[in-house]
Every structure is written in structure tokens, then in C-alpha cells.
């Protein structure tokens, strides 16, 4: 009898087990999701298993039976068989006949003539009373004798429904009631065995982890199946089930069993093994084995998927690291000769000042900045770039960046209204941003005067606006200006990488600031504003 308590207990352990496994293993999100999915599948399958194994016959009937029992009618047991009813009828008939028969016999024995006497009436009454009492007593004893095993069976059924399947009912004799008690005992024992098997199976399924290799899961599944079903031997073969021929059953020899490992519509392998020859193998047992096999199949498929995702993941990480190393190498290999060129040009220029050496140094710088920009893009995208923010007065790096561009013919003004406020920024990264923006202003401002305004903004922020007096940014370009590899429509022929604004904005954001294109104002060209965290210049 599938005890409602027992089933709900095993049912409850499944959802509980999922988070426990996931957190206990400190597994990644994917792992937890897989576990949860597996747990859901297990509980679904368990419900299905209950239906398959016991659904049609046991739970409903048992419930009805139990209900009727609890209502006190116990009428159900009266319908059990003709023989019992007959016996009860005999008992009742006997109870009613005995007083009458006794009365008749007494009448014949004592004296037929005396029956008409006055004392006869009283005597008759006495006899009747005695006969009735002994009749009732007899009927009672008989009924008690008959209902004792019935009560024992009812109590056993109650116990079984409360979860105790191990206490057998003892009814001596060979009659129907004894046979009924026997079948109850057998049923309870079968159920208990299957419950035990189901418990072991669930335990085996829950103890699995997607980190296990499919071969490991297969090996453990075979071992678990052997213990759970009491098999002599068991194997899980991860091959096409059709390749494994079905063994014929030879009476008296060990009993071959098999179940296909089926996950969805996919056959992953087959579970084969042998049972002791004496062991009964019924439909419900085969259902349970097949259920177990399909659970194993799901676990193996999950492990396969997990392994695939893991290996793809580690491949991606390797590729990413390789890409990073490659870029670092490229950067190094480009920067090393540039360093020499730059340093020699500087040294020569110091000995013999020459404008051409200055140009060599500038262009070397430019090239080296473009290499850096490329490296910065990949670093930003992989999230590896962590700015080291220090305090800095913005006017200094602005002037330094301007000097690096060496555009002496363009009017350049720094309007510092910061009132001594200092920005908090990574000086190296800020230098990249300022250089890119000033370079842009030079290129697209058509060498018109460039103004840089530094002023405190709201909320402890500093604003730095770079503007020229050129044509400004076309309306159609405004939206896509900050995208990667984008340039203005009429600017495709220039020498930029198309990364400057994108990298600059990302760098500003990495420094907890921002870079925006200011709205167009008549009489002014393009105006870009950098926002950075700022600090007042007070002693603290």
C-alpha cells in the first residue's frame, strides 16, 4: 500500500535537495540551474512513477477502503466473500433456531400434557429466557471469533497507510481470512521493498553532480542499481541498445533484466544485469527499473552537456587569454622600436635642433598612441581595465596633451575656472582622452581656435569642455559618433582609427565620469565635455 505519508515524504525531499546540492557544491549558476532542472525532472518523474506503479490500482482503492474503515461502517469487509457471509448467516440462524429447538425438545421430553398446565407458562418463559441468553452469548462469541481477524486486518491496513509496512498480520488457520491476511502481508512486503528501492534510486540520483564524467555516472549507476534491486550483477553500457542482444530467460538460472537508458527520444545506452533465480520480477519492478534507467540517462546527458559547456568555456577563456597575450606581444613589438626611434630623435634634436626631428618624435608618439588605443579597446571590452585614480589639476594634463600635438599655428586657450578644484582620474588614461579629443578638434575644427574650459559642475564633479569654431558635428552623425569604428560621413579619408571617441567615452566612464557631445550652439563648432569626479582644494 502506498502510504500517503511515505510518498509525500519522498516527494518533499526532491525540491529540498536541489538547493542543498547547488549551494553545498558552491557550484556556478549553470550548475545550480542544471541541478534545479534535474530536481524538477526527478520530482515529475517520481509522480509519473507513482502513477505508473500504483496509480490505477492502489492509492484510490486504498483511500476509499481506508475511508470506509474510518467511518466505522466496516461494511467493506462484509462484501469480501460468500463464504464469510454464509458463516455469518449460519451463526445468525443458529442463534435464532437454538432457543426454538431447545424449547421444542424440552416440551417433548418433560410432558406434552403438562404444557397445558398453569405452571407450564412460567416454566416456558424461564426456558425461553435461558435459551435466548445462551443464543445471544453463542452468537456473540461466534461473531467475536469472526471479527477478530477482521479487526486485525483493519488495524494493519491503518498501520500500512500510516507508513508501517513491516508489521505482518498473524491469522492462524487456512481459511479465507488467513489468506486475506497473507496477501496483505505479501503486498506490504512488496511495497516496502519497492519503496526501499525507490528510496535508494532517488538517493543515487540526488547524489550525482553534473561535474561527474558520463563514465563515472554510468559506473556508479550500475553499482547503485545492483544494490537497489538486489541484482547479482549490473552494467551500464553506453552503446546503441540494439547492439546488445536480449538474453533469453532459462528457468532455474539467474534472471536476466534490462532497461534502455532513454533521455527524451535519444537512446544513450542500456542497463543490463541478472537477478537471483528465486526473485520475482513483476511489471512494477520493470517499470521502476526503466524509470531508474531514464533518470540515469538524463543525468548522463546533463553531464555530457555540462562537460561540453565547460570545455567551450575554458576554450573561450584560453582564447581570450591568448588574444590578450598576442595583443600585449604586438604592442610590445611595436612599442619597442618606437621607443628607440622616439628616444634617438629626442637625443639628436637636443644636439642639433631640427624641425624634422620634432616631426619624427611627434609621429612616433601618434603611432604609439594608436597602438595603445587598440590595446585599450580590448582591455575595456574584457573588463580588465581598472583605472588608478589619483588627484590632478586638469589644466596641467590639458596643456601637456596640447604640447604633445605640437600645433603651434592654432590658437589655444585654457579657461581654468575650476577654483583650484582637483579631478580624480587616472592620469595615463586621462592623457589618452585629452589627446584624442584635442587631436579631433584640430582635425575637424579646420585649425580654428580651440578653447578648453574647466569648471566645477554640480554634485562634486568637474566639467572640462573642449570646443572649436569649425563646422561642428552634422546632425546625422551625432547619434553614431561614439560607436566603434565610426567616423563622420564626410571624414572617411582621414587617418584616424575611428576608435578615439569610443575609447575616450569608455575610459571616462571607467573613471566614474562621462564624455558627452554638447548640443550645437550657433557660432561654435563641436564641443565635447568630459565629466570627472572632483574635490575641493581644502586642507583636511
Amino acid at each position, binding site marked *: 500500500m502506498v502510504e500517503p505519508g511515505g510518498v509525500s515524504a519522498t516527494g518533499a525531499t526532491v525540491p529540498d535537495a536541489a538547493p542543498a546540492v547547488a549551494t553545498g557544491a558552491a557550484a556556478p549558476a549553470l550548475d545550480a540551474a542544471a541541478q534545479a532542472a534535474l530536481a524538477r525532472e526527478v520530482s515529475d518523474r517520481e509522480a509519473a512513477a507513482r502513477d505508473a506503479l500504483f496509480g490505477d490500482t492502489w492509492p484510490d482503492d486504498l483511500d476509499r477502503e481506508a475511508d470506509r474503515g474510518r467511518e466505522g461502517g466496516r461494511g467493506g469487509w462484509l462484501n469480501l466473500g460468500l463464504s464469510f457471509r454464509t458463516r455469518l448467516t449460519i451463526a445468525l440462524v443458529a442463534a435464532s433456531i437454538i432457543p426454538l429447538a431447545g424449547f421444542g425438545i424440552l416440551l417433548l421430553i418433560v410432558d406434552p400434557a403438562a404444557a397445558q398446565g398453569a405452571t407450564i407458562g412460567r416454566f416456558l418463559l424461564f426456558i425461553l429466557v435461558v435459551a435466548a441468553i445462551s443464543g445471544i452469548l453463542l452468537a456473540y462469541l461466534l461473531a467475536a471469533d469472526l471479527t477478530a481477524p477482521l479487526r486485525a486486518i483493519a488495524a494493519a491496513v491503518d498501520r500500512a497507510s500510516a507508513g508501517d509496512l513491516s508489521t505482518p498480520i498473524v491469522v492462524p488457520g487456512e481459511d479465507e481470512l488467513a489468506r486475506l491476511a497473507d496477501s496483505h502481508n505479501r503486498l506490504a512486503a512488496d511495497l516496502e521493498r519497492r519503496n526501499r528501492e525507490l528510496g535508494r534510486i532517488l538517493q543515487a540520483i540526488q547524489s550525482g553532480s553534473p561535474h561527474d564524467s558520463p563514465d563515472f555516472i554510468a559506473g556508479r549507476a550500475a553499482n547503485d542499481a545492483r544494490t537497489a534491486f538486489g541484482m547479482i550483477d549490473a552494467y551500464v553500457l553506453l552503446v546503441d541498445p540494439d547492439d546488445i542482444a536480449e538474453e533469453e530467460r532459462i528457468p532455474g538460472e539467474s534472471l536476466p533484466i534490462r532497461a534502455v537508458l532513454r533521455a527524451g527520444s535519444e537512446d544513450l545506452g542500456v542497463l543490463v544485469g541478472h537477478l537471483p533465480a528465486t526473485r520475482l520480477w513483476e511489471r512494477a519492478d520493470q517499470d521502476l527499473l526503466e524509470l531508474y534507467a531514464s533518470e540515469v540517462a538524463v543525468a548522463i546527458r546533463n553531464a555530457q552537456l555540462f562537460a561540453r559547456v565547460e570545455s567551450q568555456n575554458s576554450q573561450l577563456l584560453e582564447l581570450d587569454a591568448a588574444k590578450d597575450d598576442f595583443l600585449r606581444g604586438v604592442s610590445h613589438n*611595436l612599442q*619597442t622600436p618606437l621607443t628607440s626611434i622616439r628616444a634617438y630623435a629626442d637625443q639628436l634634436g637636443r644636439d642639433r635642433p631640427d624641425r624634422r626631428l620634432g616631426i619624427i618624435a611627434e609621429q612616433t608618439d601618434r603611432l604609439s598612441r594608436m597602438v595603445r588605443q587598440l590595446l585599450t579597446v580590448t582591455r575595456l571590452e574584457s573588463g580588465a581595465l581598472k583605472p588608478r585614480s589619483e588627484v*590632478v589639476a586638469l589644466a596641467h594634463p590639458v596643456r601637456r596633451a596640447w604640447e604633445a600635438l605640437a600645433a603651434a599655428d592654432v590658437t589655444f586657450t585654457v579657461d581654468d575656472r575650476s577654483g583650484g578644484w582637483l579631478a580624480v582620474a587616472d592620469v595615463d588614461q586621462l592623457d589618452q582622452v585629452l589627446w584624442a579629443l584635442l587631436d579631433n578638434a584640430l582635425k575637424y575644427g579646420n585649425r580654428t581656435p580651440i578653447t578648453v574650459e574647466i569648471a566645477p559642475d554640480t554634485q562634486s564633479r568637474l566639467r572640462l569642455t573642449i570646443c572649436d569654431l569649425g563646422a561642428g558635428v552634422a546632425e546625422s552623425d551625432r547619434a553614431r559618433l561614439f560607436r566603434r569604428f565610426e567616423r563622420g560621413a564626410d571624414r572617411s579619408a582621414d587617418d584616424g582609427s575611428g576608435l578615439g571617441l569610443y575609447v575616450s567615452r569608455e575610459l571616462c566612464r571607467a573613471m566614474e565620469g562621462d564624455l558627452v557631445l554638447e548640443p550645437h550652439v550657433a557660432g561654435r563648432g563641436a564641443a565635447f565635455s568630459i565629466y570627472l569626479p572632483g574635490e575641493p582644494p581644502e586642507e583636511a
Partner: protein
Amino acid sequence: MLSGPGAHETAPRILIVDDDPNLLVLLADQLRSDGYEIQTARDGDEALRRLRTSWPDLLIIDMMMPRMDGLSLAREIKGRADLPIIVLSAIDAGDSKADLLDEVAEDYVTKPYHYPELRARINRVLRRLGDKVPRQSLVLGPSLTLDLHRREATVGTQVVQLTPTESRLLYALAANIGQTVTTDTLLARGWAETEDADPSYVWVTMRRLRQKVEVDPNRPVHLQTVRGVGYRLVMADAGATTATTATNATTAGPADG
């Protein structure tokens, strides 16, 4: 100790390790003309061989070299002696590898280097040899431990990262623990290669530092201001801190933010 070329009779000795012969010759020339005594090595093995016969005052190591890279070489050297190291590298701040450099190198300079900046950094690192800051944890009280060689501070149970400048300032303060260090000294220590730095750099950085290392930044326990003079670093539970007030702190008094 050594505070740069010219100031002492003995020129600081520098060992440059780089696999690019052009750069090696050039940088050696530049530094020699500024009065340093230069030795060069083409790779890590050669550098280690040279270290067997004499120790330089400072090493400049290229990050990327065949066979033994700069990082491994720097680790190897630090394992033998705590020599100051400046790493020359084509990668810049923000790279994950740059974080590793912090552990083994005193400073690093990005390629292509700007010679005046490199020289400023060399001098600063050489100057810092005078600061007797141990390469180990400095426990300042129950709620503050400094690991300056790792640029880390442990505040309560929280580990906070320090910027290079912040750790340089803490170096300077820790070397004179309990005593006031003037704002000018801190400025020189923290911003040696920044030409236009002014005292507000120190003020703002100390304010930010206090946010990081003090449990209550408004009532600093360790980083105290000596108004108008400078700052001092004190141990937290030493009751004697007020008694050992710095000698040069005339206007001193425990700061209260």
C-alpha cells in the same frame, strides 16, 4: 642615503636589463650623461650573473624579454635581495599584468618612455631608499593594518586597494611614525614627476585616504592633520601619542576633521 646624481660623491649604479640593444645603448648613454653609473644586461641570465659580483643601487628591467620575462626576473631578484626595481613596459596602468608589477617593482614606466619622467622616477625611487619601511605588514591598531608593498590596507576586516601615490604618502608617513611630516615633503614624495603639483594635491589625497583607511573619516584616529604644517600617522591604541607630539608641530593639536 642616495638622493640622486650630483648630490653625492658616488654616482648611483643602475643595471639596465633589456633585450633591445638599441634601447640599451641609448638609455645607458642618456643616464650616463646625467651622471649615473650604468651596467647593462641583454637578458635575465646575464643580469643574474652580474648580480653575483656586484649589486647595483637600482635595476631597470624590460617587461617582455625572451626566455626569462621581466616579471620572473624581478621576482628572482627580490628573492635574493630587496633591490629597488623599475620596470619598463609596453603595457600601461589598468592592465592585469600591471597589478602583478606592484608586488615586485617599486615603479614602472610605460614605453615609449619620456626620458625626463623616467629620470624623475629613478631619483624618487633612489630617494625612497632612505625610508625604512619594511616589506611586511604594519599594524597600526585594531582596525588598521598597512601592507604597503602590496598597496593594500586592511580596515577592520575589509581590504582596500591603495593607489601608487597613496601608498607613497603612507610610506613617507610610516617612516616617521608619530611625527609630523610637512605638506611639502609629502608633495615631493608623492608627486616627484608632476611639475605643477601644489599642496592641494596633498590635502585632497589625504582626505581621500582618510575615507579609505579610517573607520570614521570625520574623526580620524590614524591620519591626523597638523593644521598649517602637515600630517602624521599614529598608532591607534598608544596612549602616548598625544605626549609624543611631533617636535616641529608648533601649531599642532589633534585634528578633528
